[in-house]
């Protein structure tokens, strides 16, 4: 498997850390670039993509392309909820395999317990006082709870709701942190009024360069670039691009999962603390804009401990 040739990057202290995520370009913008230089970065993508240093693309459902006992720490950010329970189990086993003895795993995922409690809270608030603002919040938490599992289109009902402006900004920001801004900004720019032109005007105003670009992108490209076309069809279907959530986790189910894999010393962390040495240098879960989480989630850590009896 030629994927095993992925280069392992070391921190200045000589530690090998692996960082896996799938949230797209906006994620890289929210972080300092330090981790790009000092960590090995794996981007979870369903479609095989050429390795682009310093980030490698890989379908984590097919295993992690590293040798046994390679890393001191592995951090999987919002990956596990996009896998089915069985895939999640084998993913945890793969992390266990590539960790050195004593290595640390950190997993962050949306916290279902928190979402459910918030849902019950909003439901009760609405039943007591069904004001439009309360109902708006209730509708939002309903989306948060259900839309990620059932959506048919990329973005789903959530992006439609944001486009329609039917949401409470403060509340959405409280729920999603920085991620919401990234999500919200492009859609606020898009409804720029384009002047309506008749067909005749449109034909007359065609610039040769525009015409060339149109032919290249719309007519030639689909035939020539099979990968691009595949990617386009994939991105449209959240089930195939794995945008959709396949399962959910909370502090208990992650514990059960990690302990069944063999991990020990399970603990729940906040966005800013970690047992990974020099965490404050990378701070992968903290916003660049202030002392808050990029996307409020559940953060857990566990260790691969192999009892010393085995070595003696």
């Amino acid at each position, binding site marked *: 498997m030629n994927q095993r040739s992925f280069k392992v990057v070391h921190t200045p202290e000589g530690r090998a850390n692996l960082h896996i995520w799938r949230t797209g370009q906006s994620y890289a913008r929210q972080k300092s670039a330090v981790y790009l230089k000092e960590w090995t970065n794996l981007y979870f993508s369903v479609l095989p993509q050429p390795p682009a240093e310093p980030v490698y693309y890989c379908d984590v459902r097919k295993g992690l392309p590293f040798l046994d006992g390679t890393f001191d720490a592995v951090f999987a950010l919002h990956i596990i909820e996009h896998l089915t329970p069985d895939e999640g189990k084998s993913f945890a086993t793969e992390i266990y395999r590539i960790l050195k003895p004593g290595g640390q795993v950190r997993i962050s995922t949306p916290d279902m317990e928190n979402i459910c409690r918030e849902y019950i809270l909003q*439901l009760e608030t609405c039943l007591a006082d069904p004001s439009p603002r309360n109902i708006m919040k209730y509708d939002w938490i309903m989306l948060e709870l259900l839309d990620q599992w059932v959506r*048919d289109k990329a973005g789903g009902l959530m992006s439609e709701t944001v486009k329609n402006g039917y949401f409470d900004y403060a509340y959405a920001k409280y729920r999603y942190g920085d991620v919401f801004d990234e999500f919200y900004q492009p859609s606020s720019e898009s409804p720029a009024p384009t002047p309506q032109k008749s067909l005749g005007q449109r034909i007359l105003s065609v610039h040769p360069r525009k015409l060339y670009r149109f032919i290249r992108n719309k007519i030639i490209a689909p035939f020539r670039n099979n990968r691009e076309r595949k990617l386009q069809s994939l991105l449209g279907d959240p089930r195939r691009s794995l945008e959709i959530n396949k399962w959910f986790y909370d502090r208990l189910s992650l514990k059960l999962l990690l302990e069944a894999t063999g991990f020990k010393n399970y603990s729940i962390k906040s966005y800013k603390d970690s047992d990974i040495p020099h965490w404050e240098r990378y701070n992968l879960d903290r916003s660049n804009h202030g002392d808050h989480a990029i996307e409020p989630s559940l953060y857990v850590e566990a260790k691969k401990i192999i009892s010393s009896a085995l070595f003696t």
Partner: protein
Amino acid sequence: MEITKTFDGRCNLHVWREGEEYFRQKSSVFLKEWTNVMFCVIPTPTIQGVYSRDIAKPLEFPDATFDAVNTYHVFEHLTPQEGRNFTAEIFRVLKPGGIFRISVPDLEHICRQYLNYLERSLQDPSIQNIQIYQWTVMEMVDQAVREKSGGLMLETIASGQYDKEYINQRYSDVFKPFLESLHRSDEKEEQPLIQRNFIQRICSLTPGKLSRGVLHRGKKLCRRISSGKKEDKVFSPRETKEAVRWMYDRLSLRLLVEKAGFVKYAQMTYKDSSIPNWGRYNFDKSNHGDYAIDPSVYVECVKP
């Protein structure tokens, strides 16, 4: 579609999407006295007195036809938009003053159960608590994400890692036939199969067996060719709409029906209803005792 009338001359419509099991749980009175529409996407042979339709499409009834409409576990299989369209359709086919009853799985209850057993398992991680906890997790998500019919729920039941008492109490009647059918298929599989290799199998062939084998395979092949391979196609739960597309509770149902124009929203139990002579049909009550067929949230509203 023909419209059936009750003994006292009322027109009632009943919509559901469960399979055969549903008939066994109910008295057959409703088949004779109600107009019955079964929600299915893949065409199925018509059962006497029941029409099967894809209700994501408009209903084929004229305006103001019915005195009452009962939808049993339908809305959770529609997307929110389809759900709004379907509600508008029901508003259309109801007479003024007509009653609309909905029953769907109760998201609020499922959520509370999940949080409840999460806390219990954190305090006391016994096998029983963890199994119930894992079941509540499944109840929240498995019906929405499953890729095979039955999903992880069926796998869990087949593996036996569940708490019988809890599930009985949650699903009562719906669960029993499901479990029975599973055990029946288990028994079939348990017939001793003697593994033989290829040469042994050839040696044991008699002319009779050989001709039967050839005939059987040939017939199968012919059938497959004539039916255009439809027989072998396994539909995904999303195609058959087995998959849950949205979920409701007492508040979101209220918002849904009031937006469509209904009034006098009220929450009901499985055995009461403002539909006249409800006791005669009792769609939500078990035949075997005084409990709900499938504990759900039941609501009713009226077209003004």
